[in-house]
């Protein structure tokens, strides 16, 4: 075995000098959350780096809904799931149809619609939140899940359309022509040629929309307020209303809430990195 040269060791040491702080910086807030989740209250509040008596008791309290703040945990979890799923499906439907129409059918005015969508994408979502809140009030949708679903679809679809349009432009036009020669109708081309070829981008966009909706806090807390209608992040925010918030339970619930999106992200990472970064910034 060849011994590493002094120069190699120095390079490795310099890389570690960056790598270790990066690791600590990334993990500390997440580790802190995990630490609270497995600590009894006394240990959590005493600033220990590892609890004297690690326990899963906090998880038991959450799963049995044994606290005032947690009495609707399952309903809220279900609300989050339902809304995220609905946003994913609706965004995919709307954006795929629009991208197919603009990119493959070359619908008149498609370019303008694409630019309008792109414009919406760049307007910060928090700025649209104020008028959106009033609009949902005018439509009579406040405290209704549809208000959050429709708001999130509005926010997710511009980017979705844009990425899907870029991806469909890359499909060879000969495919459509061949299908037309074989007598395929427009809908058959959409269903049998277009959708299968677009699958990787569709997975990426579906994941994007689901994660966006699951993670959303601002719109959720503006549009929903009833304890049995709100999503998990709003419930987490409500913990802060009390002076003696049970932080160990808040962190436990937060940990449970953070697991599904992290799992989804890592499961679809292959698609996400390819599909999203390619579209996110075109140099």
């Amino acid at each position, binding site marked *: 075995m060849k011994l590493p040269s002094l120069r190699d060791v120095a390079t490795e040491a310099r890389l570690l000098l960056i790598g270790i702080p990066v690791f600590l910086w990334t993990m500390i807030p997440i580790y802190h959350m995990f630490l609270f989740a497995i600590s009894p209250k006394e240990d959590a509040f005493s600033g220990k780096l590892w609890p004297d008596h690690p326990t899963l008791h906090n998880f038991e309290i959450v799963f049995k809904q044994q606290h005032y703040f947690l009495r609707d945990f399952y309903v809220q979890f279900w609300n989050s799931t339902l809304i995220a799923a609905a946003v994913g499906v609706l965004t995919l439907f709307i954006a795929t149809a*629009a991208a197919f129409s603009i990119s493959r059918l070359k619908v008149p005015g498609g370019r303008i619609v694409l630019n309008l969508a792109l414009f919406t994408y760049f307007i910060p979502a*928090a700025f649209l939140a*104020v008028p959106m809140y009033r609009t949902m009030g005018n439509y009579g949708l406040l405290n209704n899940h549809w208000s959050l679903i429709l708001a999130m679809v509005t926010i997710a679809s511009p980017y979705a359309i844009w990425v899907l349009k870029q991806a469909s432009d890359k499909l060879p036009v000969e495919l459509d022509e061949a299908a037309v020669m074989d007598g395929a109708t427009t809908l058959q081309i959409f269903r049998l040629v277009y959708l299968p070829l677009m699958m990787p981008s569709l997975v990426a966009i579906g994941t994007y929309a689901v994660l966006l909706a699951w993670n959303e806090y601002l719109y959720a807390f503006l549009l929903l307020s009833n304890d049995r209608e709100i999503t998990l992040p709003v419930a987490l925010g409500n913990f802060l209303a009390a002076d003696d918030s049970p932080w160990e339970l808040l962190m436990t619930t937060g940990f449970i809430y953070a697991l599904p999106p992290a799992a989804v992200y890592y499961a679809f990472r292959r698609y996400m990195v390819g599909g999203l*970064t390619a579209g996110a910034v075109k140099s």
Partner: protein
Amino acid sequence: MAITLSGDQALPGPPLSSRLTPAQVWGIILLAPYLLVFLAFVVYPVCYGLWLARAPANYVALYNDPIFARAAVNTLIFLVIGINIKMLIALLLSGFFAQQRTWIKWLSVIFILPWAVPSIPTILSVRFMLNPEWGVINHLIFSFTGDDGPNWLNDPTVALSMAIGVHIWKSLPFWTLILITGRLAISHDLFEAAEVDGASWWQKFRYITWPSMQTLYVTCTLLSMIWTLGDFNSVYLLTGGGPADLTHVLSTLGIRYLRLDQLSLAMASIVCAMPFVLPLVYFMMKRLSR
């Protein structure tokens, strides 16, 4: 004028449906769902909001509100200082993560975590770490020095810096990832040639990496600035705008006015940001729709 009712296609001015091919009809039908969403949830709210903010009195009230001025300054600090620090770190880290090492591959998988997990629990986790009495940071300061640590979030400058820190923690992985893609697109031959010529680390960066990445870098910086204008969570969940409403940014200020039932002020504060936002948006659209 020909009688189009007869259905004679040869006459001028045939009905709309016959001028469109079936594919175009389908195009319109398939585009309709998005157009409906756009009209109902973008056009209508924006017009309604602008109508609410029409009275000049709103802008006088904003001008006289010290919290608004403070929020505007905070937003500028957040964008100009915060984002530039973030992008600079992202640029450096993209070089680090582009190194071919197994352990760096694994670290990059972990590094993406802040981006992959929702921001609410992690920001609240940081918030408790900074708690002056029970937070782990002040516990550590006490056990090492015997002194009480500072009341972190009670000082507006420190609190705003912490909010910027939380923002960087959350979005650094995303921008690093984008810059890594940009870096990996540079031909490796260039670096090998530079190596042969004995170029230093800095020369390689200055004459190879930077020229091929500067467009991407500037685009990313501008895009991040636009999006950070809408970063509500980092400030709201960490400081809540406090102490004494001194750490608000424009996005949390709008919601504050909304909570105080001053909707027209909320809209007016957003309208005030438009002269800065719209040129950036226009510039970005030019760049992306090339």
